[in-house]
């Protein structure tokens, strides 16, 4: 894969690859959103009730208006939610970054309440604007990400590689959706090529599985992993899961495929490694933050002033609503689940990763805290942390 042929935006001295898509359509969406936001501002200036009017600029659309404070609490809440999504979509479009619905949820968990609310709102927002969801630079949450010189031929003979797979992130055809079940929506693009050049490990392809709360391995994911293991056994596979009992259970499932098939530990799955989040990551996070600040400031000096301005603006705009601290306390249920997994792990012998999982569960119970993957990232961007972590693991 030739990285230089794709559109490249320099950001913090690292390469972000964007898909070659027409600027005008993004520009049109941006101006639509801006005009909506401007009309909200006008309302503020005139001291009127705030109003988001999706009919703006569209005659064929049934008028849909949402007021603030509106008639009831629900309407006020809906207004706030839509405003936040519009703002995030706008920021994402301007800076050429792709957001996942999951990421939007984690921008303000209290406001949205549930992931489902976000999913519905994003879809109806796209509908109201008369565009496809992808055109808002918002995609479904991914199950995983791969990086490196790997291309996959789909059933419809389309070939995807890291360049199309990563920043494109948008299944243009239903065939893709169908074939991969949103598997490679690589919102969290891993810059393995930069790791490669730094660490001189260019022969490695890196494969990362990102799992979330509902991320128990499905058949498709497992068969995909099996395909990789079979065809390219040299590719390391990592699991990144939440630091909570469910997260560890997901890892356990990936490692042993199912609750009851522990004896089936074979070459196909045993090399799935556990990337995190581990208790040490929680304790080390400050160290990581310091090193990443040093790293980004050093690399910024290397880039020209214009692009570093761009990087700054993209960073500040996208993090304009910072993630809430997702480190939270274990619930009674969490503790029960943790003990249940400890019991299940008793049957496994001589597996270093399992010994570590046991330890992590015990330490989790001792510390009494859990942390979601979102806790690690900077407003939805895990790449720095992944570089840091994988760089250490593959050194």
């Amino acid at each position, binding site marked *: 894969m030739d990285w230089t042929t794709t559109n490249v935006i320099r950001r913090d001295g690292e390469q972000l690859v964007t898909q070659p898509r027409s600027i005008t359509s993004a520009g049109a969406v941006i101006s639509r959103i801006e005009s909506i936001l401007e009309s909200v501002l006008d309302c503020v200036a005139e001291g009127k009730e705030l109003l988001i009017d999706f009919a703006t600029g569209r005659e064929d659309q049934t008028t849909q208006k949402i007021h603030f404070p509106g008639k009831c609490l629900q309407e006020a809440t809906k207004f706030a939610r839509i405003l936040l999504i519009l703002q995030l979509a706008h920021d994402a479009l301007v800076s050429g970054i792709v957001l996942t619905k999951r990421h939007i949820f984690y921008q303000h968990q209290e406001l949205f309440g549930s992931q489902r609310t976000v999913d519905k709102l994003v879809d109806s927002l796209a509908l109201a604007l008369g565009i496809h969801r992808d055109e808002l630079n918002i995609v479904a949450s991914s199950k995983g990400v791969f990086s490196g010189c790997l291309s996959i031929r789909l059933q419809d003979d389309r070939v995807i590689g890291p360049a199309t797979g990563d920043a494109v992130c948008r299944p243009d055809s239903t065939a893709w959706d169908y074939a991969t079940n949103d598997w490679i929506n690589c919102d969290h693009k891993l810059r393995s090529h930069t790791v490669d050049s730094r660490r001189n490990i260019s022969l490695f392809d890196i494969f990362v599985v990102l799992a979330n709360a509902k991320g128990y391995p499905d058949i498709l994911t497992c068969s995909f992993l099996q395909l990789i293991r079979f065809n390219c056994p040299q590719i390391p596979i990592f699991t990144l899961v939440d630091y909570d009992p469910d997260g560890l259970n997901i890892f356990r499932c990936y490692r042993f495929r199912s609750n009851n098939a522990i004896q089936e530990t074979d070459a196909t799955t045993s090399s799935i490694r556990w990337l995190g989040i581990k208790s040490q990551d929680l304790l080390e996070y400050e160290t990581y933050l310091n090193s990443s600040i040093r790293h980004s400031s050093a690399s910024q000096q290397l880039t020209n002033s214009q692009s570093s301005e761009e990087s700054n603006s993209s960073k500040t705009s996208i993090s304009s609503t910072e993630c809430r601290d997702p480190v939270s306390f274990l619930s009674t249920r969490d503790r029960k689940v943790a003990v249940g997994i400890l019991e299940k792990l008793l049957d496994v012998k001589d597996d270093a990763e399992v010994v570590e999982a*046991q330890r992590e569960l015990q*330490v989790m119970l001792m510390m009494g805290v859990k942390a979601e993957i979102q806790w690690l990232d900077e407003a939805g961007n895990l790449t720095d942390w992944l570089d840091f972590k994988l760089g250490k693991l593959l050194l």
Partner: protein
Amino acid sequence: MSKQYLTTHTVDDAHITDIFSLAATQKTLLSASGSSTLHVHDTTDPSFPLKQSISGAHKLGCHHICTSRNGLYAASAGFGGEVKIWEYNKETGEWSDGGEVTGPTVKPGEVWAIALSEDGGYLAGTTNDGRINVWDVADRSRAKIREYETGSAGSGSFGMCVDLSRDGKFTASGHQNGSVYVFNNDTGRILYSLSGLAKPVRAVAISPAGTRVAAAGDAGIIALYDTKHGEHVGNLTGHSSWITSLDWSDTGEYLLSGSMDGKVKVWSIERGVCVATHSETDKALWAVRWLPKTARSEMFCTGGANRSISFYREATGS
């Protein structure tokens, strides 16, 4: 004036996993870890040899162990939710199984931190929902004799730590939401609800004379309260990480504290300052304990994520 402590001995890899809890008697040190085995080290010998290994004590590992002050009883709480009593045989110098605290009052998740009374007759344990239960463990029936609520029924904050005063008058508990409670054991009522730490309280300790309660946790400071009026009488500051463990010296002059960054500190209560800081490791310390004072100089020990037990002795003749 600072105090000098020297590492006299380290038992490397005392356990195969993290050491989560330590409990000392006059002659022995009991250690509990993520493995199913409890260890007993002989503290009368300068090389602290392993005297006894109790295998299969807690199959999922053990997170808390404590002893009665008279040195005759111990209790341990496992990750599986079970609580066991251990009895010391003075003749053989070994610990033997004294049975489980079972029955409908000990459901899984019902017991986290534990503490034994001076004579080993009573065991206090914290629960998920913030209650503190007290069992009569001297009697084989092991009946629950007290249940303290710290919130409206069933909705209290996770009880992370508990301590009993030597005279048996008070029970103190520390909770995840930062609250500290002191109970009057005679009346069975809450005596004080002490706030101020705001973050999880991972350790509470009542001073030997029963006049002070020390509490510490994620806030990184040790708060001192008096038990007479429930007043906040001072803070000890200096740790830069979560404080996991506290222990008063025999005389009540010094307080020992351990934290997640591997640092153990000795504090002078009279002067309100840290008089010694040690760190053998940068990994978490889960437990720090004074050894009951014998003829030799003052000693303490630490255990944690590096799986070793380090023993420290006060440097004399300065």
